[in-house]
């Protein structure tokens, strides 16, 4: 099976977050300026991935309980504190004073944290000192040798 990839554009890795208009022509009736098609900003991964900059934090994953969800030891988690966690979300939660990353779910009306690795048992939240810290929106995992996140 082959996979088709199309190239969207080149990435400026040094670019700080930029809010550039994708096309800079004035809005007016009639025909759009054909030049608009060529006035494209560079793609900015930060603004693409982060919806709420002031509420978004980077955290470092440690451990092996989430490998089933594609989160490996040393990965870079993008966490948005402004989102309300829904069942199924992977979240950061402070449990008994420790920050932990797990999948949140509800069974019946009990709340649990689930690891994504069968070797770990679900953690019931009842009776624990716990607080939602944020929702993990993305995980960055480097693939090429010599690259780190």
């Amino acid at each position, binding site marked *: 099976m082959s996979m088709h990839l199309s190239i969207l554009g080149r990435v400026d890795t040094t670019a*700080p977050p*930029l*809010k*550039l208009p994708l096309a800079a022509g004035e809005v007016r009736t009639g025909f759009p300026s054909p030049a608009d098609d060529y006035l494209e900003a560079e793609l900015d991964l930060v603004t693409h991935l982060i919806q*709420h*900059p*002031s*509420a978004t*934090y*980077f*955290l*470092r*994953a*440690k*451990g*092996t*309980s*989430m490998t089933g969800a594609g*989160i490996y*030891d040393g990965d*870079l*988690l993008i966490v948005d*504190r*402004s989102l309300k966690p829904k069942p199924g979300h992977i979240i*950061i939660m*402070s449990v008994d*004073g*420790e*920050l*932990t*990353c*797990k999948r949140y779910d509800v069974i019946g009306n009990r709340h649990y944290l689930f*690891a994504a690795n069968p070797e770990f048992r679900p953690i019931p939240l009842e009776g624990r000192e716990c*607080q939602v*810290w944020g929702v993990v929106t993305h995980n960055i995992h480097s693939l090429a040798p010599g690259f780190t996140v």
Partner: protein
Amino acid sequence: MIALVDCNNFYVSCERVFNPKLEGRPVGVMSNNDGCVVARSAEIKQLGVPMGMPAHQIDPHIRRQCILLSSNYALYGDMSRRVTDVLSQHTPHVDVYSIDESFLGFEGFEPDTLEERCQEMRHQVRRDTGIPVSVGLSTSKTLAKIANHRAKKESHFNGVAIMHPCSDDTKAFLQQLPVTEIWGVAGRSAARLRTLGIETAWQLREAAPKHLRKHFSVVMERIVYELRGEDCISLDDMAQPKKQIMVSRSFGRLTNNKADLHEAIRVHASRAGEKLRKQKGLAQAIMVFVRTNKFRQDLPSHNKSLVVPLPHPTDDSRELVRAAIAGLDRIFKEGIWFQKCGLMLLDLCDHDNEQLGLLAEPVSDEQRERNERLMATLDKLNREHGKNTVRLGMPRKINAWELRCEHRTPRYTTRWDELAIVET
């Protein structure tokens, strides 16, 4: 209406966001080298540890129960920016007054809705940044400040206190509030007010403004109007909180010229240094910020701030200028039209250190010239006989820098290699 938003125990709250274990524990944040307590959690206040106390003077029995951390300015600066960002989503009129306080203007908003709006804003700050804030609402800055105090102290307000200038409740509160509790009324003025028979905020409010202007200053006259609910004080008029000094100014017109910003920051830093020497303080860190015009939606916005820790507490304008310029260079961006820039000196401490006293006196021009000559001589000696032949007011030898970071937590939000770690 005007709101004063104040972060509760800001430095400690920042630490708790990334280390929830600190929740409910007595936590103190220390200044640089000298190790005075510059921020306290409610729990450490309850143990009777006063603000500014040198860590080594805390009773060993109490000290054992406390968690004392070194200042993590990179973290506090970043969290402060995030809080300001959230506030800016609720009104375009945000005046940053210190690293943990902002005045918000709500002109044109329906007054009846403000309490609810402020509750929402407070919850959003808590949710997005983890920082608890209190909000005081009124029609003048002075009353907003008083209301903020009440929001913190009286739990029934739920973090947002509104004080209508003419309500019975306001009257009753001001009648029992000593004038010393009013923003901008210093101990000395209070003593002189007492000789005029003015002891409470209400008596001051009822005094004849013109009369006070004669005895005191135009600021005291304005405080009277402010207590009546008229907004007439500008932030520049007011004494800064003792532990911070801020200097900022808008440019006459927008500028994208780096030299303009450099020049402005240089002037601001020198001015801040003067203020600092006048109050006989030493600064431990400096926060530089730049702002674009939020009403020019056609231009890209670029509101950045950066905290630069100083290698040792100082009141030397040259060191302040150097640090401020270094900070500015990091946040400046080509092609951006700036409206305003400024800086804030953080965590001022008194210079009771003999070796630092050399530079720390409030000096006359003549003395300053002498100091400058001294500096030049020192520089010459160091040039000719090797670096650090003669050292200025450094209390310890080489490792002062490491020393003061001993208990510093990771710079969670500004360094890739120091991110908070979550167990999966």
